[in-house]
């Protein structure tokens, strides 16, 4: 049993670290496929990457219901860390979550179980934060859409392997849809719902 005092720390400088992390995420969202770095460190709990921890401290609070995949939810220290540092309520029902944290991509539930927003309020959707193996090597993907000058190339090793096929629902649902933030250690790549991805094989 970990006591509060033994939990890994949050940001050393709450204000400036959150600002710097946000700018990385904002740049990632504005330029899909570009790899952004998250500089500020926050001692991440077990099963959570540095980037994910920094995003949690930057964007989560009592207004953002969280859904955790079973691998994360099974770690009492991780849940305690989130609760202590962000105050965000952890919910069982993924369809009301503002954010979903996924550490085991292989077990990603069908996307329609998350909030997709409504036609009137497409912003009321779940943002997936998906931890992946690598955003430097792996399969090559070609991305197009707003934020991209022509086409962008992403090399990534992602589970589930069919993530981008699944994200095709965004095409039919738009403006409803799911935005995804991929995290590998301190690197982030965002795939907002407007991005269209073509796999180019290995």
């Amino acid at each position: 049993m970990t006591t509060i005092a033994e939990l890994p720390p949050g940001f050393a400088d709450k204000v400036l670290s959150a600002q710097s992390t946000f700018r990385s995420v904002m740049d990632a969202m504005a330029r899909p496929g570009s790899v952004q770095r998250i500089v500020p460190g926050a001692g991440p709990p077990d099963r959570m990457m540095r980037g994910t921890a920094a995003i949690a401290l930057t964007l989560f609070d009592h207004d953002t219901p969280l859904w955790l995949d079973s691998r994360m939810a099974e770690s009492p220290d991780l849940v305690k860390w989130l609760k202590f540092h962000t105050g965000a309520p952890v919910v069982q029902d993924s369809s009301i979550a503002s954010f979903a944290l996924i550490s085991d991509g292989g077990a990603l539930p069908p996307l329609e179980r998350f909030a997709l927003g409504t036609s009137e309020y497409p912003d009321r959707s779940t943002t997936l934060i998906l931890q992946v193996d690598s955003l430097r090597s792996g399969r090559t993907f070609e991305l197009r859409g707003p934020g991209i000058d022509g086409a962008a190339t992403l090399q990534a090793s992602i589970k589930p392997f069919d993530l981008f096929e699944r994200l095709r629902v965004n095409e039919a649902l738009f403006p409803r849809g799911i935005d995804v933030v991929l995290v590998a250690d301190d690197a982030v790549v965002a795939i907002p719902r407007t991005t269209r991805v073509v796999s180019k094989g290995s």
Partner: protein
Amino acid sequence: MNAPAYNFAYLDEQTKRMIRRAILKAIAIPGYQVPFASREMPMPYGWGTGGVQVTAAILGPADVLKVIDQGSDDTTNAISIRKFFAKTAGVATTTATDDATVIQTRHRIPETALHANQVLVYQVPIPEPLRFLEPRETETRRMHALAEYGLMHVKLYEDIARFGHIATAYAYPVKVNARYVMDPSPTPKFDNPKMDDCPALQLFGAGREKRIYAIPPYTKVVSLDFEDHPFEPYRFNAPCALCAAENSYLDEIVTDDKGSRMFVCSDTDYCESRQAAGHHGSLSAAPYKEKAGSHG
């Protein structure tokens, strides 16, 4: 104990988190107006409280801030907002468009082309382009949901029926990424083409109306028009009287009570850098002529 009087960039952290989440959604859904819990700011509505909140949420110590009001760095609104952030965030400020990383603007887009490392933050009074056509929020929200924008075309058509051309000169409606019709804020329609395929991120904040929206970089932004009445940017047919620019947006300045007037660039930084580079208009002020003379 001297605790700082304000948090960095004035807003508290919970407010910044809320605004930051709204900004991310706004970028993900280009042109859609994301509701946010706008705060009271130490300035009145109409003075850019929406833009100020967006700027406060994104600004970091390494940023260089430029603030313009109708293109000018030197007007009350621009100066007071620039000083506000110099004081509360300690950021460097500039008037040079090229040097800025964050540019907050009221009603203009700089003439100098923006680059990829910049964010343009617009102050927006009425974010809903359909508001004057349909006062009910429930109805305009439904119209956006269904992409039902016929009413806007009727409005532009009525312009043509009455005046012979589309008489809308500012806040000219645009369609973003072929989906949402968006109010570009009361910029002159001269500036509309600059929004299209722009390398910089464009964020819009409406404080009183509590909306944030965005245009990501390299996004298609089309001004609404008709095949037989295509969109045309409007500009006074004269060169700038100070820098002789033929392609900048001009302000008309009345110089006496006998009908004399001059046309000068509304973008002061653009005009000044052109004058410094040796361009002179018909009414260039004396010091610039002396400078030019000393070289020759």
